[in-house]
């Protein structure tokens, strides 16, 4: 945590662009042990999730998307039913097999449809990571556009955009996302000639990106407004440099720091939002899996097989925590003050 001493030292004038700020930031980040650990965790989780097909096919020998309620697995040479009738006088209820701790046979147990939890966890991670990454990226691109336009053009455009942002800001984020999801989840999305099916991952990606735009756009707009008043921009405008070039050459590079710092935080937010939507069964649609849908599956088994809900939840906590730590480290390394705050 070098941050404290850095902030306590006389602040360096940040208006001028010192040579190689990115490299310096990178070096500072590399020195931060917490950030490096977080990065390592993220890479490890991503790698594991990318290997999901390999695990399912060659280790667990199952298809995690096919229900296997009538199947059985072999543990230590014994064949065990995946769905086990409860041992009670009324024969009420069935429970899926619990954790076996055998990688070849339902390592973490099975879910209510008899599917291998460990394999689903890896596949679910792919979806969750993909959605949160894409949503964060899309959100930041949108936010950059909105923030730059509002901040640079100002006037009526800024007023209108800010008002819209205010309204979006006033609606609870999750309620907003849920409303959009419920409308789109039943019939997909029709955008002119293009129809996006309801089980397409683009839908949760777009929704999550959209609802978080105000959170990311606000700091960008603030930064652009300060930059617009900065000398080099005023000078460029006085010299008659066209606006798009000013934006591309002077504004954009200067807000990149803000955007880059936002990236891991937005990804963390997106992952939380995705899991919440999927938990309410309006995010990723069956038979697809994400960590949120697995938690949702597990809710029905929470009393008998809590592992089904706990494992994906832990995965979310670990990844989101790593993203937050990384975001913190990047903020310190790049010395960006006013970036969006974490919220849910």
């Amino acid at each position: 945590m070098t941050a404290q001493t850095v902030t306590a030292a006389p602040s360096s004038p940040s208006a001028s662009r010192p040579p190689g700020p990115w490299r310096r930031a990178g070096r500072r980040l590399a020195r931060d042990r917490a950030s490096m650990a977080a990065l390592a965790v993220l890479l490890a989780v991503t790698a594991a999730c990318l290997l999901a097909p390999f695990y399912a096919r060659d280790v667990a020998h199952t298809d995690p998307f096919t229900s296997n309620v009538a199947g059985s697995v072999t543990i230590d040479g014994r064949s065990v039913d995946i769905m086990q009738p409860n041992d009670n006088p009324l024969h009420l209820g069935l429970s899926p097999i619990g954790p076996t701790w055998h990688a070849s046979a339902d390592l973490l147990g099975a879910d209510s449809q008899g599917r291998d939890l460990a394999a689903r966890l890896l596949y679910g991670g792919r979806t969750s990571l993909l959605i949160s990454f894409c949503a964060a990226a899309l959100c930041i691109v949108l936010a950059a556009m909105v923030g730059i336009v509002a901040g640079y053009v100002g006037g009526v455009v800024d007023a209108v955009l800010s008002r819209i942002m205010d309204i979006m800001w006033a609606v609870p984020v999750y309620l907003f996302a849920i409303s959009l999801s419920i409308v789109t989840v039943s019939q997909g999305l029709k955008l002119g000639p293009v129809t996006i099916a309801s089980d397409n991952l683009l839908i949760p990606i777009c929704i999550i990106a959209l609802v978080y735009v105000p959170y990311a756009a606000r700091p960008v707009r603030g930064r652009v407004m300060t930059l617009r008043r900065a000398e080099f921009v005023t000078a460029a405008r006085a010299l008659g440099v066209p606006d798009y070039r000013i934006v591309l050459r002077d504004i954009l590079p200067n807000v990149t720091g803000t955007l880059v710092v936002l990236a891991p935080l937005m990804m963390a937010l997106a992952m939380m939002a995705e899991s919440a939507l999927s938990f309410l069964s309006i995010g990723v649609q069956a038979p697809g899996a994400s960590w949120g849908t697995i938690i949702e599956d597990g809710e029905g088994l929470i009393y008998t097989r809590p592992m089904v809900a706990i494992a994906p939840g832990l995965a979310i906590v670990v990844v989101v925590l790593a993203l937050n730590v990384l975001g913190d480290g990047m903020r310190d390394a790049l010395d960006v003050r006013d970036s969006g705050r974490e919220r849910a």
Partner: protein
Amino acid sequence: MRGRRFSRPLLFAGLLAALAAMPRHAARAQDSAPAGSARPVGDGQTLGSPHRGGTLRLTASSSGGTLDPQINYTSEYAQLFTVLYDGLLNFRKADDRTSDDVVPDLAEAVPQPEDGGRTWRFTLRQGVRFSTGQVVTVADVAASIRRLFRVGSPTAGSFYGAIVGADACLRDPAHCTLAGGLEVDPATRAVVFHLSQPDAEFPQKLAFPHASILPADMPDHDLGNVPAPTTGPYRFVSYDPDRGAVLERNPFFHVWSADAQPDGYVDYIHYDFGLPDEAAVTAVENGQYDWMFDMKPLDRLGELGARHTRQVHLRALYGIYYVPMNVNIPPFNNRLARQAVNRALDRRAMTILYGGAAVAGPLCTMVPPGIPGALDDCAYTTGADPDHPAPSWQGADLEGARRLVAASGTAGQKVTVVVQNTAVEMSMGVWLRNMLQAIGYDASVKPLSHAVQLGYIQNTSNHVQISLTDWFADYPSASNFLDDLFGCENFHPGTDNSINIAGYCNKDAQAAMDAAKQETDPARAAQLWAQAGRIIARDSPAAPVIRINYIDLVSSRMGNYFYTDLYHLIFSQVWVR
């Protein structure tokens, strides 16, 4: 959490029935009491019983909508209304199969049909009073039947549309008179119905809660949260849809027929709303409530079976899950394709997905066993076909199904299964998708909100090919499964209310069903239903999946568990002391 936590709006009344396979628990106390004697309150047949008195505490996660017994179509309130309101006829309150039978309630007897089933003549009992003290008169009866149309009861057309003059009432409810269809005579207390066509099931329909008799001065609109005066052993003290209902003894009640409306044991009934199912299970286990309405969460079943065995009651229902296939669009406009699905369906897996053999069983015919006219064999299983049915379902025949798909020439087509997004139905839907994939289709599953799905799959403009849904009988008759679900008159293209989801219409089957509906001889009617059932099974417009059981959980202090096929636990017949 899907629909399971929020009890879904039970618009589709589960008036449910049971196979009385279970042994009876206790002798019925009221058998020993003299029936039909007109005595003041407190003089009911339970008087003197050591079990009389106390407060029965019930819980449900939410209220069941309007309190108007002529409009409400939920099993939650039908169960409550059965100890509050009476019709001319009623289903017998008996803890065995005889609870399927129609018995006289406010009428003195179940009439013999006259005029080939077109005329039904009743005599109103004397001396029955509403909870306001008013005597029940034939004018109240006439007004109540007319009110069915005036308030637009959901069954006004489907159940009572055969009454002469009903057409005019349906067209112009405000001026409904039923002239020519309903005649009453205050002097003889006669109530006479004239039907435009014979209806063998008219008594069942009059026993249905929508035909409850209310005072003639009830307004011509939905009563909403205002309770109507009752005739049964209890009446409302208060009602709040967000909190619950409190019932007390009806001081004007006396026992006129212990079969139709016996006296109650408990003095008070408190019905609380708002407790979610998981919490309700815990509360009943701990004795804070005596009974819960909602479905018992699947992952609590093991705990219930192991630790509360004596508090759990399992009864079969006349309720099924089935897979309707749209016979008008590809690929299921091809009979071979539909038969293939029927053949490939692994009903054992579906049973497991629903919660195991204790709560469901494989179902091979559209009419569940136990109902007159149900087929007792299975055409779609390994080693069988419609011409050589097996005695029961043996197992799924994937190979045969693949051959049928190949023969139909529909292999490789895109198929979308539309299911509700509740946990159980989603898992079944995913399973169906995998099955369709396995027999040669390019399948996907489309989950819809539970509020929307049933309307969505009915509407032909949504082009739903195949879906999954459930169905419960209003009263135990094959008509509830065959005519309702496959009758030509129940196919309304382009609307959300077209319960013939498959869009199936077969001349021969329809003829058999029409004949059966008018046949007043039960044995002959059953034959006709079986005949229609066989035609439908061969055409396979839908694949039956499972039949389901009712799981009841009661507190350890509750005695005399008393279950009827249609209304389940009878609140007036249990003990809490």
